[in-house]
């Protein structure tokens, strides 16, 4: 198990991982926020079905989900076919594909906390903002979003961390191409599988420390700006 210095490819994997998690989280927030907002506000009768659908990807093991995504993205799959028809590059084994897979898989971790936070706000602050001349979009950003801060924090942390640790989906549709789609989780996994425990420990340890520092700063920052409930 001896000590081993991290290889260059491990470092590249780290960079790719952070990039993937960052982009995925961003997209998740951009996509999840309006959905969560709509779900928190709508009185649509069949909302409960949509809620169930959103949580659904979770129940499939990630590798299997990745498998189905792979099939869907392949030339015979619906998405792959569509891509071909549109003349767009196919997504399997590309970074973009990774992002799509991760977004799909981590969606519930972002939507659910946001939806809860938006629901908890209630109508009153939005009504007040309206009487003060704020348009719907304006009051969404200046009232709903700040009041839902803890929801955003949770969504971001869960979304980011889950993407960093994600592995099955990413492995399946990423193809583990070093420098492109090899992320840290796969790199660590590879080390463990190859009995290179030393490298695995180093990588895992580094990842944990890094994540801990990141998470800690996020929570620390959060405390500073937190809305104290009375």
């Amino acid at each position: 198990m001896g000590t081993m210095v991290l290889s260059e490819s491990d470092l590249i994997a780290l960079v790719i991982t952070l990039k993937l998690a960052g982009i995925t989280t961003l997209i998740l927030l951009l996509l999840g926020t309006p959905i969560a907002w709509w779900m928190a506000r709508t009185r649509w009768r069949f909302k409960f079905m949509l809620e169930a659908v959103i949580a659904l990807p979770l129940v499939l093991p990630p590798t299997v989900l990745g498998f189905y995504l792979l099939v869907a993205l392949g030339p015979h799959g619906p998405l792959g076919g569509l891509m071909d028809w549109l003349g767009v590059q196919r997504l399997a084994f590309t970074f973009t594909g990774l992002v799509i897979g991760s977004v799909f898989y981590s969606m519930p971790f972002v939507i659910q906390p946001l939806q809860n936070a938006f629901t908890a706000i209630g109508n009153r602050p939005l009504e007040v903002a309206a009487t003060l001349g704020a348009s719907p979009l304006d009051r969404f950003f200046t009232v709903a979003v700040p009041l839902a801060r803890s929801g955003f924090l949770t969504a971001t942390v869960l979304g980011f961390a889950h993407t960093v640790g994600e592995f099955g989906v990413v492995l399946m549709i990423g193809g583990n191409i070093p420098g492109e789609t090899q992320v840290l989780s796969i790199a660590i996994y590879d080390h463990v599988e190859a009995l290179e425990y030393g490298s695995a420990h180093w990588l895992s340890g580094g990842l944990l420390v890094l994540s801990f520092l990141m998470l800690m700063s996020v929570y620390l920052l959060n405390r500073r700006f937190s809305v104290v409930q009375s």
Partner: protein
Amino acid sequence: ADKIRVAVASNFTGTIRKIAESFEKSTGHKVILIFGSTGKHYAQIKHGAPFDAFFAADARRPKLLEKEGVALPGSRFTYAIGKVILWSPQKNYVDIEGKTLEQKEFRYLSLANPKLAPYGKAAQEILQGRGLWKGLRGRMVRGENIGQTFQFVKSGNAELGFIAYSQVKHPGESVEGSYWKIPQSLYSPIEQQAVLLRDNDTARSFLSFVKSDESLKIIRGFGYGYYGIE
């Protein structure tokens, strides 16, 4: 009747099921098969997994277990020799000499991670032999194991890939698509070895059964080689 637990490399799933079935029929014992990656099985066995025998996808891990005194000394043997083929589900895509590798404008070539899987190592040797290893770097997608490697090709996301012959060869059926059966001389033999982990009669007799002619026929039927037999 006794019950034994046998850990088996995933690529051998179909074959061992058949063998175990006929073993159960003839002896009345029960064989519980546990499939998984050889790396994981190795780690689990070292940490006390309750397995009686271990059918690895390579020779390295059984040797290690023997050296570490976990496996029963002298019980190790090669139960099958993997054969590598270059395969594509498309007809007439791969020519019988593998010139496709140089000639075709494929986007992705699938192979198993050479670090983890012997089939991947074999693929690496073949490509290196033809001087293609460096040039194909960005076009190679790597499966964590041979099963995943196959799925990359099968789903059409990679046009072709180095897979195990056993994955497309089913007893009594002709192989779909097109393939190049790679001469054994181009790569070091993929010895899949088994060891006994716990000394009990049932396990011993199961290992003997695997070496029997009846089993041999099954193993060959699934496209594996055997010592001295092509």
